[in-house]
């Protein structure tokens, strides 16, 4: 096994690394969080907290690519956990989130319908769709972020797309 100790983690977690990691990974983390939650302020909070938690896991700083995956998983977990609170989700579905305006500006009907349909998805399905179609992750990578198998991701995305098609009947596959 590796000699992956707390002190080792501290060694690699100096401030230069942290600032670099922050600049490299936080924008992407915030965007993913915002697309999942639909709430820019909440996305900032979740991502910042996830970043600090991930930094606390010093072992992941030894490999930047591992850190990115770990941060992504922390963000997705935090986003989906957020929606486990039924009251919050209900409020969210009623459009009573704190500041959805930043991403919810009216675009055109089709997009509004799509956003509305996305919000109606279960949080994990929504996260799976964001990871696949925004973050461009493979099913395996999305599964790692969601803590499930690639097959489960495939199923979640399929069900999400099925739900979206039902809610947006004008959508037709080519």
């Amino acid at each position, binding site marked *: 096994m590796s000699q992956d*100790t707390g002190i080792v983690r501290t060694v690699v977690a100096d401030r230069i690394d942290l600032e670099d990691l922050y600049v490299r990974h936080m924008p992407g983390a915030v965007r993913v969080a915002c697309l999942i939650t639909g709430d820019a302020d909440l996305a900032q909070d979740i991502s910042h907290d996830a970043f*600090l938690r991930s930094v606390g896991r010093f072992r992941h700083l030894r490999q930047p690519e591992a850190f990115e995956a770990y941060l992504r998983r922390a963000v997705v977990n935090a986003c989906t956990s957020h929606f486990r609170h039924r009251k919050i989700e209900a409020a969210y579905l009623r459009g009573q989130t704190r500041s959805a305006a930043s991403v919810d500006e009216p675009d055109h009907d089709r*997009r509004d319908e799509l956003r509305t349909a996305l919000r109606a998805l279960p949080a994990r399905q929504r996260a799976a769709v964001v990871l696949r179609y925004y973050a461009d992750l493979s099913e395996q990578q999305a599964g790692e972020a969601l803590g499930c198998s690639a097959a489960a991701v495939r199923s979640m995305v399929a069900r999400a797309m099925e739900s979206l098609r039902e809610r947006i009947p004008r959508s037709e596959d080519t």
Partner: protein
Amino acid sequence: VNDLERDLRELFQDDARRVPAPAAAPEGLRRSARRRQAVFGGLAGFAGLAIVAGVVAGAALVLPVEEGPAPAAETTTETANGITITYPSEWLLLDGAPGEPSELPRLVLVLSPTGTPEAIGCPGQAEDDELTLLMTVEELPLTVDGPAARPWPVVPRPMDLGTTGSGCFPDWEFRQARWTASDRTFEGVVGFAADATEDERTEVLSAFASMTFEPSAEPVTSVVLAQGTAGGEDWQLIATREDLGLGLAVEGHASGTGTVFQDAGAQLQTTDHVFGLGTDAERVIFGSVPEGVVRVDGVEASTADGTTVSTDVLDVPDDIDPDLNAFLLVVDPEMRIDLSGYDASGQVVATGSVGRVRAPPSPSPSAALEDGRHFGYVRSVDPDAGTIEFDLAYFLSGQEANDAYHAAGGTGPVPNDHFVVNDNPMLRTLTLAPDVRLRLLDWNRCCETFFDGDMALFAEAIDQQGDVTDGDLIYRGQSQWWVTVEDGVVTVIEEQYSP
């Protein structure tokens, strides 16, 4: 790509562009990050530091250390996170952080000579502090096998961390040890700056050796059951308490897999993971066994005189799962294995298989099904008579699925890593046990969550060969099923996930 997928991608891209994402690290990051470094498990914010106060003279060494007798410094004894430690009075002890997540691993204790907490986080960059010594203790998941299961006391051994060029620990030397005491597993590291004196080294090693441990106040939630090497990669088998049952995972450095097992009667439930590549590859088969199974044999099934591998069952603490234990075998990745679980008297009390179904397709299958778990399709349900009509099929995975797929004219790897063979149309009428359990996939939380279904709705879905919904729950008439036959009757009908 279809319209919906393209629309989603465009929507996400446009919305993401409008997200006010940070472009630079905030001013407070340096301080915050350092603080978080120290916190990791928790140094509790620096307001809550446990500054040493009491005085106890002449702490006795629990362990012999190489640097000679302890110096006659004034010492004090403190307890932090269930660890009692004696150390020089003027040193600084940082203990756990209330409010921090209890998830393991976590740093539970830091000891150093005088110094500011920020210096402890990164002494090489501290401006007004010359930290020369540092000791950390981290609590790991309880380990019941391997070096980390060694009982306390232990002696920290030199370790090479490659810190020569580090900005935080330039030219430091470290020693490390892992041990288990009072049903808790720890990793301790002591570090010395290049200019640390021999007396200082002796003092920190004396403090290390003085530790005693109390049991954790929290129940065990994860345990390292076993560890080893497969395909050139070190792995650990970790059991965790999950809401749905027993979580088992094999974790290596670069890869791993895991799943949640629920009580399945006499069924050996398995999953597997291949470590390594090419001729170095090895497959780790692991899974759950019911209480009472003490040994598991795996027989290579593709030849008549197949190789047999055997392993003792690994005890899973009752706090994690009172009904299931675990086993693990390392086999050749190409082997297809039939598994048998033996009780203490040597009787087979549980069975399972990996890589193939237990019974090969038979040209003239009998109408009855032997006891065991069988895959197939439910063609009709008669709730009043308590029977189903079952079309036996074979659910193949791995190499066998590929072989069958190619034999059926398929090319390339088999889709979704499985293939169903159903050459015989014969229907079997099976009797349901009065308390037959119907386990259906919760497609809203796909795909490892089941709910107990209603037989009448199930019958309706099978009859319609379509979906019947009950609120959010879906009964899929065209799904595939596993039936468990015990004493000639069906005791469990379980839905098979199919993408």
